[in-house]
């Protein structure tokens, strides 16, 4: 009986020791991946950035329009379009297709779907395809600053790391393929 009890205690202690690191590790790191492939030249570029690193580095960069993790947007740069008001309108609107442009060779679609802003551009003449999917949480975070002419990029990165795995941008043409996405893998594959 005593031996059995000792065995059970030993098993419990060993199990606790074995599982402790995983339990203490907390949520895993998330990565922003950028992959550019050029099939005709046989070239590829992969960039993998831990989001926690980007979040810590951004506030330290003070150059041009970027300062303390915020980007200033001048009205002249936006042709007097109020980007905050525009994004706020999209944020509060229900799922819908906002813009649809169909031309002979071009097809543009901007919509809100399943908590994401989705932009599709197809150019048949050039064989180009652009797909952008931005979670609304990220848009909310961008607008979370008090100032009207600023976007909070740091908060957007935080929101991106809290969101699930997401394919953010794909651009394809006849030879090149660009992909930007977020997941918890520390490599591009």
């Amino acid at each position: 009986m005593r031996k059995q009890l000792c065995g059970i205690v030993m098993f419990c202690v060993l199990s606790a020791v074995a599982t402790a690191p995983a339990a203490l590790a907390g949520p895993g790191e998330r990565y922003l991946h950028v992959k550019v492939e050029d099939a005709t030249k046989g070239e590829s570029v992969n960039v993998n950035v831990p989001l926690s690193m980007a979040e810590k580095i951004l506030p330290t960069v003070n150059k041009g329009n970027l300062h303390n993790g915020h980007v200033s947007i001048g009205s002249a740069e936006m042709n007097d379009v109020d980007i905050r008001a525009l994004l706020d309108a999209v944020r509060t609107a229900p799922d819908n297709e906002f813009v649809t442009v169909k031309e002979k060779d071009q097809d543009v679609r901007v919509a809100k779907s399943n908590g994401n802003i989705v932009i599709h551009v197809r150019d048949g003449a050039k064989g180009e395809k652009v797909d952008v999917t931005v979670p609304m949480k990220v848009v909310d975070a961008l607008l979370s600053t008090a100032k009207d002419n600023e976007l909070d990029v740091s908060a957007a990165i935080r929101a991106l790391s809290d969101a699930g795995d997401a394919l953010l941008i794909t651009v394809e043409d006849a030879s090149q393929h660009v992909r930007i996405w977020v997941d918890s893998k520390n490599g591009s594959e």
Partner: protein
Amino acid sequence: MILLGKVALGIVGTAVAGVGLLCSDGMVEVKVVERHPEVHHVYVIAPAMLVPIGMRFAPRRELSHAAAQIQPWMPTIRAALDQLRESDDVTLVEVQQPGEHVRVAKEGGSIVVDVEEKDETVHVSTPIRAISSTVEQLAASAPSI
């Protein structure tokens, strides 16, 4: 005889402590293989602590010029190195071209750069702690205003 033993023990102890101290920042590893026109192998492994020490012998004028350039970026560099130290191993950048492969990664506590070309292979591994202390020393050598 006992005294001699004590002296020997003292010398060995000091040597071990010295080597331990010298290696405490890790090791810098450089491996170069040239394949053309002749095959050459260069392999250097040195205590990383020697890098900031070696900086003391660099020309002051050149250092202060570099320091002035690096100083505005020190908060960014510090944040990047701190985060790299804490992050899991990751391939940060990988570039592939026909006949060429470049990889920059964080492995263990080091930044590793691998370059593979048709005629040459280069591998450099530098502990992040050593990069950090070298950059701090470089920034500190900026001329005071």
